[in-house]
């Protein structure tokens, strides 16, 4: 551990010294040093909230540091704004792409370039770059018809057109299938081989160990260590990142009970022109089991959840039953009364009201648990309920009078999950339960879901994280383009097989 990074022959491409950035509530970066050599793939790793995004924004000129210095190819530099960063030769591929869906690839790229070039004139250059790096992209294609992986390629090609010397990739694999990840890595290795430096932002240990030459690990805004990932184990990297040893959640074998949630041949059109229609979904979840639905977001997850929760009752065919009762015409409140719990993907604004206190937020779904009598709110009961959630799920906050927006993403997620679990649902839906949550909180969430399963509830988890699904699910299915594959026992599946299904091949 703490082995020095490889010393490149020339001056390093980028050196950050003592970068510090303070926000009103948090010291996001505290005296951070990073050094990226020529042709080096350097990982900046850390949990959510460790300060990775802030650091990247500083390098790309989006934010200014409060103190510290930046050296670019040996010269002290101030990066005033993203245009200046691009002028220096820094390119960035964002986690969430900024592409106009109704425009073509060439039009999108023309809009993003600093120089003004007609899209038609740009097309041959796009083709040349795409060919050279093995990134198949058709300049004339409309973006809305492209998969997420293809859109990412557009973003990479856009950066490469400006022949950058440093390419920043912010969590690039969070939206990709395992196969697409392998393709991306091949491209990145090739770019590095030609002398481009790559700053690779991620919290996924396995990827960093396969891809990166060196790594800077951030924890709570500070550098907690530097490492050569190939010489480390996943466990030792995790220790650097989290500062503690982690125990994985365990699933004990258990015989599932009667069917609690049944979806039969369910189809529904999408009300959003860029949404996904659901086609003939068949799924049963029994009491005492966790069923996982894998797949890249945008393949019908949102629509399936809205149909199951009762938030959207559009034109549909098929049937949904909850504990033996047909519910497809019932609204969200009626389904909840039958024993449905739901942890939505969006926490602020959907799972919780941002400006309301945690006590008031328990009322959102908990009104049936004795918090309302004769139409009057029992504030005392709501406060007690909120306190119980905070204690049991170790929600870090100032108390039940804190507002939801004051909590960090992970703590709010623990609160929402805790609220739904303490309402003792017979069926729980959980969407991306650990998305953006730190490793410790993710573990607690996994254990809570397993606890609910062991207590006899049926749990349906929809997630992009395959590792998560393999850790906590009894059975797994894959949702691709609005179609659900057959649900198979976890033991019968491999990550590669699920990846193939995610990419749309071999639908069962």
């Amino acid at each position, binding site marked *: 551990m703490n082995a020095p990074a490889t010393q490149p022959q020339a001056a390093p491409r980028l050196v950050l010294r003592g970068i510090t950035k303070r926000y009103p509530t948090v010291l996001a970066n505290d005296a951070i040093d990073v050094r990226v050599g020529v042709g080096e793939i350097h990982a900046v790793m850390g949990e959510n909230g460790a300060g990775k995004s802030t650091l990247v924004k500083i390098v790309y000129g989006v934010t200014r540091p409060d103190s510290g210095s930046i050296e*670019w190819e040996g010269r002290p530099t*101030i990066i005033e704004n993203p245009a200046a960063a691009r002028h220096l030769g820094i390119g960035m591929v964002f986690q969430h792409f900024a592409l106009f869906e109704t425009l073509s690839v060439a039009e999108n790229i023309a809009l993003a370039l600093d120089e003004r070039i007609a899209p038609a004139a740009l097309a041959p250059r796009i083709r040349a770059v795409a060919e050279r790096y093995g990134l198949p992209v058709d300049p004339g294609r409309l973006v809305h018809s492209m998969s997420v992986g293809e859109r990412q390629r557009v973003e990479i090609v856009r950066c490469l057109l400006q022949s950058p010397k440093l390419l920043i990739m912010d969590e690039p694999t969070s939206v990709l299938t395992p196969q697409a990840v392998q393709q991306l890595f091949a491209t990145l290795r090739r770019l590095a081989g030609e002398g481009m430096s790559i700053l690779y932002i991620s919290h996924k240990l396995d990827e960093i160990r396969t891809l990166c030459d060196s790594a800077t690990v951030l924890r709570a805004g500070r550098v907690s260590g530097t490492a050569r990932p190939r010489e480390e184990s996943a466990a030792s990297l995790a220790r650097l990142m989290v500062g503690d040893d982690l125990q994985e959640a365990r699933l004990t074998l258990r015989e599932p009970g009667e069917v609690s949630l049944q979806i039969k041949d369910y189809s529904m059109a999408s009300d959003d022109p860029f949404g996904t229609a659901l086609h003939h979904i068949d799924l049963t979840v029994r009491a005492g089991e966790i069923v996982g639905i894998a797949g890249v977001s945008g393949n019908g997850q949102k629509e399936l959840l809205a149909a199951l929760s009762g938030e959207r009752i559009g034109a549909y065919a098929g049937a949904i039953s909850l504990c033996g009762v047909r519910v497809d015409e019932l609204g*969200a409140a009626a389904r909840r009364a039958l024993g449905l719990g739901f942890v939505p993907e969006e926490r602020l604004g959907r799972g919780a009201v*941002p400006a309301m206190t945690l006590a008031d937020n328990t009322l959102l779904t908990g009104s049936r648990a004795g918090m309302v009598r004769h139409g009057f709110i029992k504030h005392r009961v709501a406060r007690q309920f909120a306190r119980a959630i905070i204690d049991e799920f170790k929600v870090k906050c100032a108390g039940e009078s804190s507002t939801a927006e004051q909590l960090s993403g992970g703590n709010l997620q623990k609160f929402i999950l805790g609220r739904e679990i303490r309402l003792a649902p017979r069926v729980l839906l959980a969407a991306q339960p650990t998305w953006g949550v730190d490793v410790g909180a993710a573990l607690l969430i996994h254990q809570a879901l397993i606890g609910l399963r062991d207590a006899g509830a049926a749990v349906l988890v929809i997630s992009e994280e395959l590792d998560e699904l393999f850790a906590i699910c009894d059975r797994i299915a894959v949702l691709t383009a609005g179609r659900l594959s057959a649900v198979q026992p976890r033991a019968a599946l491999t990550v590669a097989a699920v990846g193939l299904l995610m990419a749309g091949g071999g639908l069962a």
Partner: protein
Amino acid sequence: MIGFPWRLEKRAAASGWMRVAAPLIAAAAMLATGCVVFALLGKEPLNALNVFFVQPLNSLYGWGELLLKATPLALCALGLALGFSANVWNIGAEGQLILGAVCGGGVALFWSAALGEWALPVILLAGIGGGAAWAAIPAVLRTRFNTSEILVSLMLVYIAQLLLGFLLHGSWRDPEGYNFPQSQAFDERLILPVLLEGQRATIAFPLMLGLAALSWLFSTQLFAGYRMRVSGQAPAAAVYAGFGGSRNVWFALLISGGAAGLAGVCEVVGPIGRLQTDISPGYGFAAIIVAFVGRLHPLGIVLAALLMSLLYLGGESVQLGLQLPAAVTGLFQGLLLFYLLAADLFVDFRLRRAPPLDGRRA
């Protein structure tokens, strides 16, 4: 780098202190700007402020006028605030107020004899019903056809004004009224009793205070009020929790329409005493300002209504005392709302000195 050395920075949490202070800061800024305006008009500012804000309250009669004008403002604003906090934007309280006056006035003109001693309560209920029915039109259109209640309720104001004019120029006109567009004066037993002799404020003022207390109870203690607040602050959370959207729209519009209708009928069976074409000097629109200056909170609304009422009285006072135009009232109202919106920025943001930069430019 040359530039403004201060920058706006988002606060970690909305400042509760600033939320209360913003209306006070806005009122102070309104007074300061008012001084400048008076000076530009060639009036001695302090004297003008005295005429505007102090002289109207020199007598019992003046205090009565203050309460009298504050009552319809607060009634309309209390109803509007319920809707505003639930994301239902009723802009047409003025029209609902007129319809309340028309329906209440209609009962007073044509059925009061048959109703006997029940006439006054029935008149008030008819006023509430008229306002609520007028507000039901945007409710139907919004819940059925997804139209904007902002536009519909606003347009209905003009229809209400024309309807009132149509009746008073036509069949409801007083035959002995020398062709003025007004109805017969109502019978004395149909007029709301005044609070004290020697002034004009009626029992509508304590009635309004009671409704303010009910509104507080509703929004803080009742689950229905909670559901409306959730719909206003986080519509997706309301859908998630299964709080039906159209129920809230109906509720908000019926309550605010009914409250505005009550305000209207209390005017015609109060200080006016008959139906006429100008019932309200824009109470329904000024109530929008009152609702926001009062932070959508019942107590704040009562205080803001008193302030707004004083602006009306002061405007009349400077017209008489200093020969200034009537537009001065609107000017002060506008200043108040303008400064309030500006001061509200600092609820969520604060000014901070820009951090100095170290290091050299490349």
